C-alpha cells in the first residue's frame, strides 16, 4: 500500500510541473499588462519601468518561470500584485469557504444521486425509473445561474427564509453558516447529483445482471440485502472514481455560484485575479487547484483499491 501511494505521488510531480508550465506561459500569452493594472492612473514611463524591474518582468520568461517554481516548491507563491498580500495567505483565507461549499454540494449530490440511481436501477424501465431519469435530465439541463437566481427570488426575496448572500464561518456560528451556504450548495449539488445518478444507475444495472447477484438471490437473501449488501458494494467503485473527477466540475461551478451568491471564496478570488491580471494569484490558485485535484484522485484510487479485494492483494 505504501509503495502504491509513493508511486502515485511520484507520478504527481511531473504532472504538477506540466501544469505549472502551462499556467505560467498561457498567462503570458494573454493580452494586457499587469504593470498597467498595478500602476492604476499612473502613466509615467519611469515609474512603469521601475515597477517592471521590481517585479522582475524584465527577465527572460524561463528565468521568471524557474524563479517562480523554485519559490512555489518552498511554499512561497509570491505576493498579490493588487493587494500586496502573500498569495498563500489569500488562498488560506478563501479556500476553507469553497471547501465548505464543495463538501456541502457533494453531500447533497451524493445523498440525492446515489440512492435515486440505485432505486432507478432496481425499477429498471418502469415508471419510477422513467420519472427519476426525467428529473435527472431536467436538473442537468437547468443552468446553475438560473436556478440560483430563481431560488434567491423565491426563498430569500419572497419567502424570506434564508439570506440571499454572504458568508459566515462555521467556527463562528454553525447554524447561520449552514443557513447561508445551503442554497448555493443546493444549486451546485443538483447538477452533480444528476451525473452521479446516471452513473450509479448504469453501474448498478450492470452489477444486478451479474452471476453473483443471481447466486445471492438463490441463497434466499432478501431483496434489500441483495441490492444494498451485495450489489451496491460492487457498483459503488466506478462512482468513487467519478466523484473525484467531478471535483473539477464542482470548482468550475463554484466560480459561478460564488458570483451569484457573492460568497468570498476561491472562485471569486480567481475571477477577480484574472480581471486584474494579478498573475501571482492566478498562478497560485491554479497550481493549488491542480494539486488538490491530483490529491483527490489519489484518495479515490486508494479507496478504490481498499474496496476492491482483487486489487488489494496485488499490492
Amino acid at each position: 500500500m505504501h509503495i502504491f501511494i509513493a508511486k502515485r505521488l511520484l507520478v504527481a510531480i511531473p504532472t504538477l510541473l506540466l501544469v505549472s508550465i502551462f499556467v505560467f506561459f498561457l498567462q503570458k500569452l494573454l493580452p494586457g499588462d499587469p504593470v498597467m493594472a498595478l500602476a492604476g492612473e499612473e502613466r509615467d514611463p519611469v515609474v512603469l519601468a521601475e515597477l517592471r524591474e521590481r517585479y522582475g518582468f524584465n527577465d527572460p520568461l524561463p528565468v521568471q518561470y524557474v524563479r517562480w517554481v523554485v519559490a512555489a516548491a518552498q511554499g512561497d507563491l509570491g505576493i498579490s500584485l493588487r493587494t500586496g498580500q502573500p498569495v498563500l495567505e489569500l488562498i488560506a483565507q478563501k479556500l476553507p469557504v469553497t471547501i465548505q461549499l464543495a463538501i456541502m454540494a457533494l453531500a447533497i449530490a451524493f445523498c440525492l444521486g446515489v440512492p435515486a440511481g440505485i432505486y432507478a436501477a432496481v425499477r429498471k424501465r418502469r415508471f419510477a425509473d422513467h420519472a427519476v431519469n426525467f428529473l435527472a435530465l431536467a436538473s442537468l439541463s437547468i443552468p446553475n445561474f438560473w436556478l440560483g437566481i430563481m431560488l434567491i427570488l423565491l426563498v430569500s426575496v419572497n419567502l424570506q427564509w434564508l439570506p440571499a448572500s454572504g458568508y459566515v464561518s462555521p467556527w463562528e456560528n454553525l447554524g447561520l453558516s449552514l443557513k447561508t451556504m445551503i442554497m448555493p450548495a443546493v444549486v451546485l449539488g443538483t447538477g452533480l447529483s444528476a451525473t452521479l445518478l446516471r452513473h450509479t444507475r448504469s453501474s448498478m444495472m450492470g452489477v444486478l445482471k451479474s452471476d453473483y447477484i443471481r447466486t445471492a438471490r438463490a441463497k434466499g437473501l432478501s431483496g434489500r440485502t441483495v441490492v444494498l449488501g451485495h450489489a451496491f458494494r460492487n457498483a459503488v467503485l466506478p462512482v468513487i472514481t467519478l466523484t473525484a473527477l467531478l471535483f473539477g466540475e464542482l470548482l468550475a461551478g463554484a466560480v459561478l455560484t460564488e458570483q451569484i451568491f457573492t460568497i468570498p471564496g476561491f472562485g471569486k478570488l480567481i475571477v477577480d485575479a484574472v480581471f486584474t491580471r494579478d498573475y501571482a494569484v492566478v498562478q497560485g490558485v491554479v497550481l493549488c487547484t491542480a494539486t488538490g485535484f491530483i490529491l483527490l484522485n489519489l484518495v479515490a484510487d486508494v479507496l478504490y483499491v481498499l474496496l476492491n479485494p482483487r486489487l488489494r492483494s496485488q499490492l
Partner: protein
Amino acid sequence: MTAPILSVRNLTTAFRTEDGWREVVRNIGFDIRAGETVAVVGESGSGKSVTSLSIMRLLDPHQSRISGQVLVNGRNLLDLTEGQMQDVRGNEIAMIFQEPMTSLNPAYTVGRQIAEVLTRHKGMDRAQARTAAIAIMERVRIPNPDRRFDQYPHEFSGGMRQRVMIAMALAARPKLLIADEPTTALDVTIQGQILDLIKELQAEYGMAVLFITHDMGVVAEIADRTVVMFRGDQVETGTTDHIFRRADHPYSRALLAAVPALGAMEGQAQPLRFPRVDMASGAIAPLPPMARPVDRSVPPLLSVQNLVTRFDVKAGLLNRPVSAVHAVEGVSFDLWAGETLALVGESGCGKSTTGRSIMRLVEPRGGAITLQGQDVLALKGAPMQAMRRDIQMIFQDPFSSLNPRMTVGQAVAEPLVKHGIARGKAARARAGELLEQVGLSPAMMDRYPHEFSGGQRQRVAIARVLGLEPKLIVADESVSALDVSIKAQVCNLLMDLQERLGISFLFISHDMAVVERISHRVAVMYLGEIVEIGSREAVFGNPQHPYTQKLIAAVPVPDPDRRLLRRNTPIDELKSPVRPLDYQPPKREWREVGQDHLVMV
C-alpha cells in the same frame, strides 16, 4: 415408494418480447424423489436453464410469466409470496451455477458468503456460522478451510470456487439441489472431481438433485432418470438407461448419436467425419473418413523448436520484473501440409499461448519457428504481413471476434481488401463464394452477426480466414462453445476444407473426444511443456505419460453403466507456472515409445 421432494406439473414459462408473450418452455412435468438424480438435457435454447430458474422463481417477474405447478412438500411454490419464496431458496432448494468464476461476489470473502446462508436461514450468530461454514468447507474438501475462510474468490481456482459454491448451496442442508451446468466451465479432470463430490454428498445427505447439462457423458455418469428437452418441449422422460439404450423419441437418439465419444476411433487410421444426424428424425448417416493421406517424406510446413514464451510479473516501486510466468517452455513439434496436430491440455497449460507465439501475436523469448523454410522469428515488415496471411487463426467465441457493426459480407471481404487481394465488387463476389464454401448462402451477406446462430457465426469466421488462402489455420478452441450437433458439423467442415485445400490445422482444444476424431497427431501439454506427442492412435491407444492417462480417464463417457463410477482422483490445486527470474528449466529427456511417439521422462 416415497413421495417426491419436487413435482413439476405443466410448467410453462413465457417471456415478454416486443411481439407479446413468447413461451420458451411448455408443459414440463417430472418428479424427483429423495436421493434421486434427474438430469435435464438439451442443446442451447432448449429451455433447460429457464426450467430450473422457473422452479426457483429467479426470473424477473416483470419480464416473465410462469404457470403450472411446482410442488415442494405439497406446497405450490408458484403460489408463494416473494417473502415466503426467500425462505425456500437456499434453505429447502439450493442452486449452483455454471460459471464459478463469476458466481461469487468478488467483494466479500468466501467464508462470509457461505456463513451468510447460515445466519439467514438457521438463525446462527456470526461465530456459530463461521464454525459451521468451516466445517462444510472441510466437507467439500477445500484444503486449509480455517485460512481460506478469510480469502476472496479471486484467490481460488475454478474448481475450488465450484467447491465453495457447493458448500454454500449445501450449508443449510437443502432437500433439493439444482445444479445448472455445474461442471461445464471446468477442466475435465476437475469436472470428474466435482461430479464425485456431488454424488458423495448426495449419498450422505440423501438429497434430491436436479442436474441441468448439455453433456451426455455427464448425464450417463450421474443421472438416475433423464428428461430430454428440445426447443422448449419435454420430448422424452425415462430412466437414463432407457434413454441411452432404447430412446423412443428421434431427437433423443439424434442427440446421443451426435455426441463425440472417446474411444470411438479405435482401428481408424484417418480422421473420421462425424456421422450426419438429422435432429428432427434422428436418422444417422455415416460419412467417409478423410481420404487424403499426409505426406511426411517432404519437409514439414511448420517446424517449431524449443519455443519459449514467458510473461514478466512486475512489482515494486519501479515495476521491475520479479518473476515470470513460463507459459510455453521448450515446446517442439513439426506439422506437415494437410495435417492436423492437436494441442490438448487444461486451462493455463500454454496451448493458446503456443498458437499465438507461432503467429507472433505474442513475442516468444526463444526457440525457432520455421514456416516453409522461412525463419518466422526474423521476419519484419512486408514478409511478416505475408506470413500472417499464411497462418490464420479462428477463435472460440465467434460472436465477440466478429465486429457487430459490420455485415457478414463486409467481415469476410475485409481481409481480402486489407491484403490487397481484391477490392470493391470483386471482393464482394469473392466473399459470396467463400460463404458458399462454408455452407452458408451468399444471400446472407448483408446481415449482421447477431442475426446468425453460434454455428453459423463460426462458419463466417472460417470463411473470413479462407479468403487469404492460408497454409495453416490455428483453431483455438474453435468448436468448444458449440452445441454437439453444430460442433460435429463445424468439425466436418474443417475436415472437408483440409481434404479439398490441403490446409494444415493446429487444433487447440481441451475436448478429448473431438480431438480424437479430427486429428492426425496429438501433443499433450502440461504447465507449458509438451509431455507426450505422437500419432492419434498411439496417444489415445497407448498413453504413456501419467498426465495423459489422467486426462483421458477423466473424460465422461456416454455409457449409463458408468453411473456408479467414482474416480477418487486426488484433489490438487493447479500447479503454477510462475517461476523466479533465475529459474533454470530442468533438462528434459524424451523416451521414444513407438514410431513417432515421444514421452517426457
